[in-house]
């Protein structure tokens, strides 16, 4: 496979800001990563780290006070940030669709669910209403909903059913990329796995790709080829999902890994990362993770770390060369307790 021809989405040095009354929030800063055709990319990070902002920026669906301040988003060879509304409109859903974070209010309450799927199809395809409707039936079947429920209104659906309906809608036009913002949070664990598998099979069927925002490391391990670890609006680490999970190069990735239980591995205590994410209105100098990093040096508080190449991606850490030693340290609870002490002292 050619390394560069199958690049589907390529984001370069993306900055996204929000203008609020207190100033400008740099919610996403200098983010770069890529997505290849047929791949699933996992996007992880704490709440408020800019994941949702990032994926909304890809479709230019930012709220009115949000804007892309810098950087490029290439979809194949087209530059999304330079597109006018009509060009964007044509790409939306047809080529890049979206499964929103909260399924509860994502459907228009006054229209039947089926009609809303039909609307998505008819917006982009010159087919008859009947054909669109039969496609909707097919989709409902795929996600495990009775086709009779197409005639129901959203309020007649449970949370899980709404989520499935939106997944069905997202798949309606076989888009090249599906952006899924925690697509299965409304579903119970058993169904989650089922639905994810279903989505993956369908995507694989037409070589579609997905960007998936999730908190669930196990989901990433199972389904993602690539992973982006975000913190405070920046990418801390980007790379091959299995490699990053197995041998994280960034202290934050190490911390994330610690915070999740391993089903197959040895029994151990879960370690959380003490502290809270930085205020993006006034981001800290140097590395954004510095205050919560047990390995932070003097340098980390002054100098922003450069991106360093790793096996399958890059990492933003001054101590990347010592990653192997740090990994051993990061596995111990005392290491992270140090930060708590340090915070008290400051």
């Amino acid at each position: 496979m050619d390394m560069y021809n199958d690049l589907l989405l390529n984001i370069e040095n993306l900055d996204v800001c929000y203008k609020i009354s207190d100033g400008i929030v740099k919610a996403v800063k200098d983010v770069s990563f890529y997505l290849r055709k047929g791949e699933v990319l996992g996007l992880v990070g704490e709440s408020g780290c800019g994941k949702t902002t990032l994926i909304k920026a890809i479709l230019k669906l930012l709220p009115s006070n949000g804007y892309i301040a810098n950087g490029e988003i290439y979809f194949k060879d087209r530059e999304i940030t330079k597109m006018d509304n009509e060009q964007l409109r044509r790409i939306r859903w047809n080529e890049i669709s979206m499964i929103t974070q909260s399924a509860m209010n994502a459907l228009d309450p006054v229209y039947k669910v089926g009609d809303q799927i039909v609307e998505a199809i008819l917006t982009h395809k010159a087919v008859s209403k009947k054909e669109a409707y039969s496609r909707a039936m097919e989709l409902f079947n795929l996600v495990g909903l009775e086709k009779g429920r197409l005639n129901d209104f959203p309020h007649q659906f449970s949370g899980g059913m709404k989520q499935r309906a939106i997944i069905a809608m997202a798949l309606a036009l076989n888009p090249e990329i599906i952006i899924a913002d925690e697509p299965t949070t409304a579903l119970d664990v058993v169904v989650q796995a089922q639905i994810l598998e279903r989505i993956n099979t369908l995507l694989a069927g037409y070589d579609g790709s997905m960007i998936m925002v999730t908190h669930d490391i196990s989901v990433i391990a199972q389904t993602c080829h690539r992973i982006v670890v975000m913190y405070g609006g920046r990418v801390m680490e980007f790379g091959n999902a299995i490699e990053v999970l197995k041998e994280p190069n960034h202290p934050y990735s190490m911390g994330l890994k610690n915070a999740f239980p391993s089903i197959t591995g040895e029994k151990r205590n879960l370690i959380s990362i003490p502290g809270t994410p930085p205020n993006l209105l006034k981001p800290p100098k140097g590395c954004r993770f510095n205050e919560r990093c047990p390995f932070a040096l003097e340098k980390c508080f002054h100098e922003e770390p450069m991106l360093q190449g790793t096996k399958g991606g890059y990492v933003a850490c001054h101590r990347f060369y010592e990653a192997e030693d740090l990994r051993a340290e990061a596995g111990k609870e005392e290491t992270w307790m140090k930060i708590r002490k340090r915070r008290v002292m400051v």
Partner: protein
Amino acid sequence: MRSMKYILKRILQMILTLFILVTILFFLFRVVPGDPVSMYIDSGLDKESQELLLKQYGLDKPLLEQYIIYIKSMLRGDFGNSFQYGKPAITVIGERFWNTLVLMITSLAISLCIGVFGGALLAWKRGTKIDTVGTILVLAVRCAPVFWTGMLFLSIFAFKLKLLPLGGMNTPGTNFVSLYDKFFSADFLKHLILPALTASLYSAATPLLVMRSSMLEVVKEDFIELVRAKGVKEKKILYKHAMRNALLPVITVFAVQAGFAIGGSVLIETVFRWPGMGREIVLAVSARDYPLAQTAFFLIGTMTALFNLIADVLYAYLDPRVVIN
């Protein structure tokens, strides 16, 4: 089928409401100080003649019996004779009622259109000059008393520009062969413009502001973002999704407002010399003309209840989340 049942149920409820209204009206007028005896029966008459007259009006019987007689005859469509005119109350008020109704429905329809589309526009253009200027303008109109705007319009359009008539419902001397002829003639419509405009401007403000704030809520909803993500055209998002959802609270407010509009028509009718029932009601109340006043208030009450019924049915139709049972 289920919706037919629902409408039927609401109509029964409405009838009950009206019955209560009639009862309250009946006793209310009799509790109010001042009585028709002193107003319509000359104190110079001898005692026997006075009592004869009282008997004629049925005012000699105990209150409860009067009430039962009143309800019984009302069910037969007999609203009693006006004390002042000596004619059936319904005849006196009937024609005027239609005049008021035509003016009111016209102005309500206009104000609903202005409210819905104006509110949607302001919300869609939120933060721009259109929104700022528009909102201030709406508030200004809302604060201006109707008789003042009415006179302002009269002085500009009728007096200065001489585009429209100064008042009344038709040019004096015109005769009409039918009701249709009366309400659909060009002459009538010319007379209708200014009062209808004045009334609708006043009553458009509330639905407009409700629509605006409702729209601002709706456009923040997740489903609007999803529709946008679907690639639906902005215009279609506006009217098919945003406006359609924002309309719901406006309907409720509007039903309430319709009631006020009938009550408020007195001022407009006075300014434009519109032969409606507004002034007739004031006269009837001050003259203790029970049958006439009761009939008029009953008609107003019926209209209000009817508007509420229409709003409820419309709401149930527009919002599938309303459970009909």
